[in-house]
């Protein structure tokens, strides 16, 4: 059985202009030890998915449909106290802005020990600090820096500390929301290596949220491409990268700046952000799509299975 199965999840936000349908009909599943990357531009709903899994949606958000089955129970049906038993103990998160995720007035080791103590009433403070020490070893922070304050850490070290905090209660699923976005390439490479390493070693499920498609290609087994609140392509990393089917995936891949290819001038037309308050019934990418015809903007696109491990939401393949 899959560890996590998200079925037809829809989430929206009440805004002054109306109900904004941020995530619509998203389904995916993860077996134990698997890693999934969610890729898309800002505002496509990838962070909203992460927050719904954690039960941390803001006040003005509402889940309008679907299920989040984790170890067989629907997380959306749990009460606030029940979800607290799952959060961090079973599902932990590496937050986006590592520089702001730590409390500046507490020592780093104490903050991580606090997470352990909050979830395990039977552990003494010394034992918790001992655990922190071994966690720091896993993420590669020297033990003599444990008692430092966050401001004494570099950006990369803060990110490592955040990863240690996510690992602190031995979760079976970790959601990493843009963990390397604010870091430079060298530090990014180190953090990605650390994430890949603990993920394989501790056999943890990973959902990796990023707008950087190459980073996801590097870390994940499967990948979901998101556009305007919907998954538009989903499959095994190799399948999606070898034969990208959805036009949006193709644009994403084409606009990635690499060092390997010969130099090419890229065409950039970011286009309008689709209206998510009154979304079109047709394909949401049709306005930007070079291959779209009149039917695309009228008919609701359907999933097309390309192979058992690869599918795309585009009506051109019918």
């Amino acid at each position: 059985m899959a560890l996590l199965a998200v079925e037809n999840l829809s989430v929206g936000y009440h805004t002054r202009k109306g109900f904004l349908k941020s995530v619509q009909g998203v389904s995916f599943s993860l077996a134990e030890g698997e890693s999934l990357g969610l890729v898309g531009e800002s505002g496509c709903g990838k962070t909203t998915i992460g927050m719904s899994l954690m039960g941390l949606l803001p006040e003005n958000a509402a889940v309008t449909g679907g299920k989040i089955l984790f170890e067989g129970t629907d997380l959306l049906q749990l009460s606030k106290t029940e979800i607290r038993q799952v959060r961090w103990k079973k599902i932990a998160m590496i937050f986006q802005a590592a520089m702001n995720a730590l409390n500046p007035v507490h020592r780093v080791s104490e903050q991580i020990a606090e997470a352990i103590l909050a979830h395990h009433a039977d552990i003494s403070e010394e034992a918790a600090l001992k655990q922190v020490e071994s966690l720091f070893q896993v993420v590669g922070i020297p033990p003599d820096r444990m008692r430092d304050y966050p401001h004494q850490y570099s950006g990369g070290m803060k990110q490592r500390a955040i990863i240690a905090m996510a690992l602190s209660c031995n979760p079976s699923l970790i959601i990493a929301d843009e963990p390397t976005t604010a870091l430079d390439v060298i530090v990014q490479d180190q953090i990605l290596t650390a994430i890949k390493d603990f993920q394989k070693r501790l056999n943890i499920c990973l959902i990796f949220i990023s707008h950087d498609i190459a980073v996801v290609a590097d870390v994940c087994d499967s990948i979901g491409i998101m556009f305007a609140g919907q998954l538009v392509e989903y499959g095994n990393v190799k399948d999606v990268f070898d034969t990208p089917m959805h036009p949006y995936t193709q644009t994403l891949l084409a606009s990635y700046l690499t060092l390997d290819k010969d130099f090419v001038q890229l065409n950039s037309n970011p286009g309008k952000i689709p209206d998510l308050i009154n979304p079109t019934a047709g394909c949401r990418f049709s306005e930007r799509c070079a291959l779209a015809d009149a039917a695309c903007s009228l008919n609701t696109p359907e999933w097309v299975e390309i192979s058992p491990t690869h599918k795309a939401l585009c009506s051109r393949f019918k």
Partner: protein
Amino acid sequence: MKDPNTVIVQLERISKTFQTRTSFLTGPPKGVVALNRVSFEILRGEIFGLVGESGSGKTTTGRLMVKLETPDSGKLWVDGNDITQIKGRNLKKFRRKVQMIFQDPYQSLNPYLSVFESVSEPLIVHNVGDSKTRKDRVRQSLHAVGLSPPDDLFYRYPHQMSGGQRQRIAIARAMVLEPEFVVADEPTSMLDASIAIHIFNILSELRKKFKVTFLFITHSLAAARYLCDRIAVIYKGEIVETGPAEDIIQNPQHPYTQALIQAHPRFRHAIKRNITRSRRT
């Protein structure tokens, strides 16, 4: 000094050390060497890339060139003038020719100013034209960064715009004085990949149209390669390699440049053919 007709910016053995703040708890001040005898030059009309990791001194170099910092030693010529000692009226004249685009458009624009107020502010500071010509200049500037029709945007505020639009407003604000030289400090690090490319294309259009020289500061060699004619790689306050962009990528000499190239994320699988295919369609 080299011929200012070909060389717009010239750094000669520039050093800069920052003092940490002292207090009774932290003990005596420590010097942090940001730049150590840095020398290079930027040619008129080129886009010059300065690549390095966080803390390597790349932003300090950019800030020195627009006189937001003063070097401890060394010489720095911009557009034929030594700017290390520049003051008063000459400094104000200098500021008109040199502009900066900052990293984070969420913080570099005043949230209380409308687009028109933000973009026209440099013109007012430098006393350029009357209100009608100022309006025209703002319009032209917004048009040049691809924000059209500009009049629709005049009375919008930063919070009503996306990150890409905000950064374009910041670029319009830098371009409105028609500067000779612009420092762009990681202008796309807060933006998505597709929007980043859009910004790069705007910068290279501006270079062609207005013959502006750019210093492009980045931590991504791939971005520098896409945009720049020449690149300098900076590491711990020292320039380790300078040369034409393509040469540096294809044939890096310094171990640090090689490490930068190694660290750049790449696709595990052979996707080259798909990219060529999708571009054709």
